[in-house]
């Protein structure tokens, strides 16, 4: 049991940034720029500290469920769940957010809409922590929806749409204003959200509960009931994946993320590293024990749809996004593609974990990689912010030579991109390698091949990024007016974090695996029903069996791919021995591929075609409406009017006619009387 004061810690972590948000919003008139940044930084620091203390206290005794008496919905108490998954993620989220807030203090100086910015950033962090700590689906949805709304509002931060704030291009590629980008993010993620929402309602209809632990414990009974309707479990699985896929920018809901960089750079960092996109992965992990029970304990094959969807779409996204990252012209867009690709790995990791009899090690690898990605990606966005301001352009091919102006930034970036491409012993290597190995281990051949092929692409685009931004001919640079130490300090801390995390990988992943295993085994459905429960508690992590020749081959191939692709990119973009234009001129296929990738394989256009279809439907609806309106509001009144005119003709005013009417009526009445009708 947790001590009384410790039970307040998750609330402190969640509510402190929310209070910061309210304070900033209430003080918006004061324009006290420094005060806002102090509120943002201190509230995120409080969240981080509370998360760390909580993890220290609750890690060993987790899972702990905290229930409040307040009712969200009939039969749904407000619940928080403290388990290794939530504790670990909360630390990652709050730490990364704290670093980003620090960076913001320097970056946002003099920018418009300070109060709005800081209020939304604080609300963003608070919502993400609410989602992470949520122990019931209603609370989770509150966090989920708020995260989506905050990201929309922050992406649209420069809502006045000045031309210099537009992203995309260079022409002929389309350019989009920030307000458009925010709306695109909101609407795309909403489509996924409503899918998840419907799945949650189906689950509630069969389980009668929104509480996660109850859902885990009773999964055996309600999943069986759900599976009695053919196709229902598969449908629920696929619908449930809609939200996570869209939030985590996975195929086919991924096209909003490249434009999400229209917001200020710290916003991009927060979306890509700590909140929003990580929310999808976290929610998949939250539902994993349920579908794991369905598949492995109850033998319901339809439950595998959940894992196959995650694994296949994750792998496809990882590969496609990495390929697009290789040709991206904007620095932040290349990083956005990189995020999609890395999140593809995470989705694949969770899919493969669920298909594996022993899910804990895969989940541990996935969450380790989530932390690694959070650290190096937030830092890379910080680097992008500095580079863009110094170079005065968002396009990489117009940058170059920044190494001389920003040597420290270059050095830190070198560490970070090495981590991103998966150079051992940095943090990007361990989790990614474990995920690739696991996908082969569970027989996901196609996702395995795609994931492995993503490795050289990652090495290529990261080296290209480094080369284009920092090497080559020095372009005309601007003077950085922001205090560089405020921008560089968090970048340096995060770079050191990437190294430390890499060096502690075996210990951290091992510890996480053990904790996740014991946490999963506390749920009755898994403990009682799983035939492999004992095997689950004794199983080791895939990397612990590194003697396995198969895994060694995978690691070796992965490293070889990194070396070859990295070297190729180094020749082209760092050493500049081969000019890419010449290469493209010689290889028409490559040129066509490059242009297809730059056009985003037509997927972005597909979004606009769908939007166009809805706009076309508007016309049809207008036509239907016109018909209904004419019929009911014009023809019927006109018909009544005509009838009235016809009847009016009878009213001649002549005495003779009136007497004739009277005689007719009296005769008719007498006739009816005579017949006995009246």
């Amino acid at each position, binding site marked *: 049991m947790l001590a009384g004061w410790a039970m307040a810690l998750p609330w402190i972590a969640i509510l402190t940034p929310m209070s910061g948000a309210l304070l900033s919003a209430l003080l918006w008139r004061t324009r006290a720029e420094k005060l806002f940044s102090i509120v943002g930084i201190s509230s995120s620091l409080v969240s981080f500290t509370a998360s760390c203390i909580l993890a220290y206290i609750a890690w060993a005794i987790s899972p702990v469920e905290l229930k409040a008496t307040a009712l969200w919905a009939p039969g749904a108490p407000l619940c928080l769940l403290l388990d290794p998954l939530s504790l670990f993620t909360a630390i990652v989220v709050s730490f990364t957010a704290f670093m980003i807030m620090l960076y913001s203090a320097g970056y946002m100086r003099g920018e418009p809409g300070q109060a709005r910015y800081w209020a939304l950033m604080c609300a963003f962090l608070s919502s993400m922590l609410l989602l992470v700590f949520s122990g019931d689906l209603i609370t989770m949805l509150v966090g989920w929806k*708020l995260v989506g709304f905050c990201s929309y509002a922050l992406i649209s931060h420069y809502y006045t749409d000045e031309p210099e704030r537009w992203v995309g291009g260079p022409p002929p590629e389309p350019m989009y204003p920030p307000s458009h980008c925010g709306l695109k993010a909101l609407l795309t993620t909403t489509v996924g959200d409503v899918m998840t929402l419907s799945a949650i309602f189906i689950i509630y209809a069969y389980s009668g509960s929104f509480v996660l632990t109850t859902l885990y414990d009773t999964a055996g009974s309600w999943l069986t009931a759900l599976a009695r309707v053919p196709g229902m479990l598969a449908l629920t699985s696929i619908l449930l994946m809609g939200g996570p896929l869209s939030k985590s920018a996975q195929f086919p809901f991924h096209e909003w993320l490249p434009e999400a960089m229209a917001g200020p750079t710290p916003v991009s960092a927060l979306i890509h590293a700590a909140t929003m996109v990580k929310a999808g992965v976290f929610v998949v992990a939250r539902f994993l024990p349920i579908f794991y029970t369905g598949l492995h304990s109850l033998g319901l094959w339809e439950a595998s749809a959940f894992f196959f969807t995650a694994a296949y779409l994750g792998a496809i996204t990882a590969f496609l996004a990495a390929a697009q990252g290789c040709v991206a012209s904007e620095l932040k867009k290349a990083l956005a593609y990189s995020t999609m690709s890395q999140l593809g790995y995470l989705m694949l990791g969770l899919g493969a974990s669920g298909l594996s009899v022993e899910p804990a090690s895969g989940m541990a690898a996935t969450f380790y990689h989530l932390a690694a990605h959070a650290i190096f990606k937030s830092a890379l966005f910080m680097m992008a912010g500095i580079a863009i301001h110094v170079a005065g352009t968002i396009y990489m091919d117009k940058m170059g030579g920044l190494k001389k102006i920003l040597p420290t930034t270059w050095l830190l970036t070198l560490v970070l991109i090495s981590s991103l491409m998966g150079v051992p012993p940095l943090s990007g290597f361990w989790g990614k390698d474990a995920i690739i190995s696991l996908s082969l281990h569970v027989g996901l051949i196609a996702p395995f091949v795609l994931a492995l092929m993503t490795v050289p692409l990652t090495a290529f685009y990261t080296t290209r990024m480094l080369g284009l931004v920092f090497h080559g001919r020095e372009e005309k640079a601007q003077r950085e007016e922001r205090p560089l130490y405020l921008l560089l300090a968090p970048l340096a801390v995060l770079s050191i974090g990437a190294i430390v995390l890499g060096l502690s990988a075996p210990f951290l992943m091992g510890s996480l695996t053990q904790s996740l295993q014991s946490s999963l085994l506390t749920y009755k459905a898994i403990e009682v029903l799983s035939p492999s429960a004992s095997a689950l508690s004794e199983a080791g992590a895939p990397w612990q069996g590194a003697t396995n020749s198969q895994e060694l081959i995978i690691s070796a191939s992965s490293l070889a791919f990194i070396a070859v692709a990295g070297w190729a990119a180094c020749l082209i973009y760092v050493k500049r021995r081969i000019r890419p234009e010449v290469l493209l001129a010689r290889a028409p296929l490559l040129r066509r591929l490059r242009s297809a990738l730059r056009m985003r394989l037509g997927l972005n256009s597909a979004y606009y075609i769908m939007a166009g279809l809805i706009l076309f439907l508007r016309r049809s609806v207008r036509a239907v409406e016109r018909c209904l309106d004419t019929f009911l509001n014009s023809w019927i009144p006109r018909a009544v009017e005509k009838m009235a005119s016809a009847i009016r003709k009878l009213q001649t005013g002549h005495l003779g006619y009136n007497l004739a009417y009277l005689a007719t009526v009296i005769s008719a009445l007498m006739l009816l009387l005579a017949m006995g009708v009246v």
Partner: protein
Amino acid sequence: MVLVPYVLLQAIVIPLLASALSVLVGKKLGPKMGWLTGGILIYQTALLALACLDVWQGHVLIERYTWTSSPGVSLYLVADGLSAPTALIMSLICTCLAFYSIDYVRYRVEVLYGRGEAGDTGSERCYAFYYALYPFFSVGLVGLALSWDIIMIWFFMEVPIIAFYFLIDLLGYEDRHKIALLCALWFITASTLFMLGALMAYVELGDPSLSALPALVGKPLVRWACALMALGLLVKAAVFGLHVWIPWVHANTPTSLAGILASYANMATYVLARTLVLPLPDILKTFSTPLMAWALLTMVYGALLTLAQDDVKRLCACSTISQISYSLLGVASLDRGAVAGGIFYMLSHCLGKAILFSTAGLIVYRTHERDIEHMGGLGRLMPKTAVLWAVGSMVLSAIPPLSGFQAEIALFSTLFSSTTGDPMKLAIAICGVLATALTAAYTFWPLKRIFMGSSRADLKSLREASASMSIPLIMLAVASALIGVWPGLISELLSTAS
């Protein structure tokens, strides 16, 4: 027990005091009459809050005052878990919009009748007339919520029609005289259909109270009575095919009354639940699935129709068509929990729509422009108005912490639970949830079009509307947030009734 005597009767009658005062001193007070009316309506809201508190404690307040002994019609008022929160929210909306009216009516009077000089009886008569009729809405809507008698329900349904007709004719937009007539004809047709059904039920039962309605089962006229009552209510609820009055009437109503008109249309689902679904579920069983399908069709059609609008007021008006159908979906499922969910959704929608529509009014009031195509960039010039629009959009799009989110959860969780054995109903429910994505499109897309981007050069000097117009909307937003953060306030009350 509440300490105030005749609390329900007072809640119905007190607003008429405002009418009487307006007749007596309205001309003298002019626009200031709005403060007096608002003050009196605050008292009504406070009375209903007390009644809610009592219901919360597990009581049911019943007051019966015989009107005519033959036929036996009485003012039979009941405040239970369903009616008390409904009456409170209706009263709150009327109260807030009474304050909103103060500056708005002055503006409309100036636009339509010119700036009146001091002592100009023409324009002062307008204010007196407006505030004499305005309390009728409060009486009608609260009466509709509290009535436990089908004849009185019909009566309270008629009361706001009189006010709508005259006030649209007085201060409406476009061809306001024609619109007022259109409004009256549609509403009277609907009320007449309801009245015919209600009279049939009364003839069969000899007792107009809702408690007697279950005895209608097996009577020869029961189907006719139910069909006529339902048809009348569906016209008011603006289901697909019977909705064509909304784009005209709702869009051209004076904006201070638009939130009330939306509430009036929404109350049709409440009355449907009260008079037919809860007392006579077996009779409606056959119609449940078709009615749900009809509601789904209306949701989607209404949403697409809203997306097709470029007129900011018409846009808000068309969204009402789609939103009412969510409540109808819950009510039509015949499940008691889903009915409560449907009513919760209705209350949330009324709050959200009052905010959204009134914000549209603020935009029109300041820009004198209704075409969204000619707007853009207003966020920088009118940030408070932009936030209010965003809040209204959030309520409708079910984004926490506002009431729409909890209402959506309450509606769909119970609806899905009630449809597990019926694949067709489950499919409709799933499609209903999926259709909510369109709500985000038709609320946030206009937010972008109206408030984001660059602004027109001639609008650069635009100012925010006065505090008397924005504070009432902020109060409605606070109420919505309170329900969103503590949904038990409403859901626990509703669940006691269901």
